[in-house]
């Protein structure tokens, strides 16, 4: 029996942690208003239920002060949320210094990864923990969506245009494997276009990259 996944997955990077903090804040705000509206709704339904056929409601057409209040308060809260989000956007977007660049190419229907030493793999993504990794994302055919739920980021893979995002895996996640699904509809293989990402220690990563490249050269040399 597999556990039912029903909340945010593992936080793999410091950035995914700060995105989850933002999510919790946003969820807190909307939950407050959700509870407020539902409580008022149910209270009014019960409290003001019509019990006699000739019963009527009070003669009130509106209240300008209330209109101003319930326009300005949500507006002010949304402005604060907006400002908070803008800060996170720039932190997300600013590329890190000297990243390990991995080229990602979406195909119908698999992911191809090309590492800095020229090694290419299919559906097998490895990243060094504690180091900045930048994904340069392309597509060889239709639009795909390069998505790592544990990182909380996705970018579409487009033909003729490069998209990118970066990550820096926590060192305590070494050895763990994460899903890398395709998140933009791309045809009948869309749901099985699922790569796996393994987090490695930088030394192991280095070693793996070299030995795989050797193997690949030998294979193609035969």
């Amino acid at each position, binding site marked *: 029996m597999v556990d*039912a*996944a*029903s*909340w*945010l*997955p593992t936080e793999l990077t410091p950035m995914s942690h700060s*995105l989850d903090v933002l*999510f919790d804040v*946003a969820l807190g705000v*909307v939950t407050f*208003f*959700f509870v407020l*509206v539902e409580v*008022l*709704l149910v209270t*009014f339904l019960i409290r*003001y239920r*019509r019990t006699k*056929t*000739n*019963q*009527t*409601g*009070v*003669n*009130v*057409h509106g*209240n300008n002060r*209330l*209109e101003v209040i*319930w326009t300005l308060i949500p507006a002010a809260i*949304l402005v604060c949320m*907006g400002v908070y*989000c*803008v800060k*996170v*956007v*720039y932190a*997300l*977007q600013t590329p890190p210094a000297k990243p390990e660049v991995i080229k990602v190419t979406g195909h119908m229907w698999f992911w191809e990864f090309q590492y800095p030493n020229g090694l290419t793999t299919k559906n097998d993504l490895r990243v060094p923990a504690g180091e900045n990794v930048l994904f340069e994302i392309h597509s060889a*055919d239709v*639009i795909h969506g390069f998505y790592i*739920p*544990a990182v*909380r980021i*996705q970018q*579409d893979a*487009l*033909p*003729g*245009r490069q998209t990118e995002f970066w990550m820096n895996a926590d060192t305590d996640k070494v050895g763990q494997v994460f*899903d890398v*699904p395709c*998140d*933009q*509809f791309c045809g*009948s293989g*869309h*749901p*099985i276009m699922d790569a796996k990402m393994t987090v490695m220690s930088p030394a192991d990563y280095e070693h793996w990259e070299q030995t795989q490249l050797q193997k690949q050269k030998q294979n193609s040399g035969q």
Partner: protein
Amino acid sequence: MEAAVQAPRKSFIREWVMTVDHKKIGIMYGVTSLFFFLLAGLFALLVRTDLLVPSGLFSPQTYNEFFTMHATIMIFAVIIPLLTGAFGNYLVPLMIGARDMAFPRMNALSYWLYLASGVVLLFSMFFGMPDAGWTSYPPYSIQSQGPGIDLWVTAIHIAGLSSILGAINFVVTIHKMRAPGMTYNRMPLFVWSILVTAYMQIFGTPALAGAVTTLLADRHFGTVFYDATAGGDPMLYQHLFWFYSHPAVYIMILPGFGIISELLPVFSRKPIFGYHAIAYSSVAIGFLGFFVWAHHMFVAGMSMSAGIPFMISSLIIAVPTSVKIFNWLATMWRGAVDYTVPMMYASLGFIGSFIIGGFSGVIVAEVPLDMHLHDTYFIVAHIHYVLFGGSVMTIMAGLHYWFPKVTGRMFNTKLGHISFWFYFIGTQVTFFPMHLVGLAGMPRRYQSYLPEFQFWNDVSTIGSYILGVGTLIIIFNLFYSAKYGKKVGNNPWGARTLEWTISSPPPEHNFTELPVVTENPYQPYSPQEVEEVATA
């Protein structure tokens, strides 16, 4: 009595096929779109059934066709035609005190075009269904084989033409044909919402037509609008598509807001709270609705910071919507709330469910959070809380509310309440779990999925069956009662808008003498007059 003078019975062709009467056209829109509602619901049940097990029960190609057909039919052949074509056509002339729409023949034409577009979609079930989703993004939709996408484009084109003709008709009718004394600030709020919706259709639909025309040209005429290797750009399609399709979300919800604004005061026996706030917030939504489209494209290839203006506009548009919610709640405050079937759909059904879609909308509007949630089941949950918990609930509220006016009979109240609880519970059971698998990272449009997502998917599927049963009960109740229901008088709810001042069903030209309007329809109730309604 008019009935004493037996008019010769008209043939079916004369009475329906050749009619230009806005009420008959409205009924034809309603019946046709309820048929498509059943069909789209069937596709939804097939989609949900596939997802009972992680490996999926159908082939991926079949599954892709099912969800494409489900969404296309629901949007273009059910929700939009029901709200504007059925409710709008039937009610607007009655509510503003007119004898018909401004252009009755064009009105009939827009119905027949709508039917034609639906028939094209039906054809595709025999000749090859579209498989690229209702968004039909190129380049996939250009590579897709068979006639499915071509039929889809054709259906969209015809539906769009029908929409534009209908919208022009509403705009002219509302501006030009109001009864004496019916100033803009005395118009029923439903009419306000249809006016704004019509303007949105006129400004938005051409962009959609452009998107699908270029798509068709790329498929067959060798153009390269969306071919990146030849210098085209697939993102252009997405901009054009969403420039229509985000406003379309408001096209599908604003008339519903209008329905709610009519029902709440009647069943609370109170004037609407904040008439002007509700009317003008519709205008604000209609205007702002054209500046948010790229929130569907935060991860589609634009830089993250380019999403910021669209994030801001998408957050701002939540303000006029929340203004409406608070005004509706205030309308019920210290009212005399009657638990009728339409009121249950409007209060608990609509307000209680729709706000979940509104709040998840605020979350996915935030660029950093959309990086994770985009194209996951969280979005599927969001759109269904808006369109099902929102639009469809308002449709059910409206169908039950105006049913006695249209048929002269009352639906079965007991069945009505039962169907409501099927709908309310079914909606939550089907759509709420989608938030959870979405948060966990399950992408949408997946015919198969990882085993850890099975539990909540199965819960959703069970919920969808509850909705299916509820739908059958509603349809049975309405069609059975139209023939055998208890007869009712002109105004069984004690409502104030003009359609309730004339007979049920209304006479052919609505008003023998045009009414003179002196105030808006949301006036306080006196105990004497409600006594009269109760005994009538």
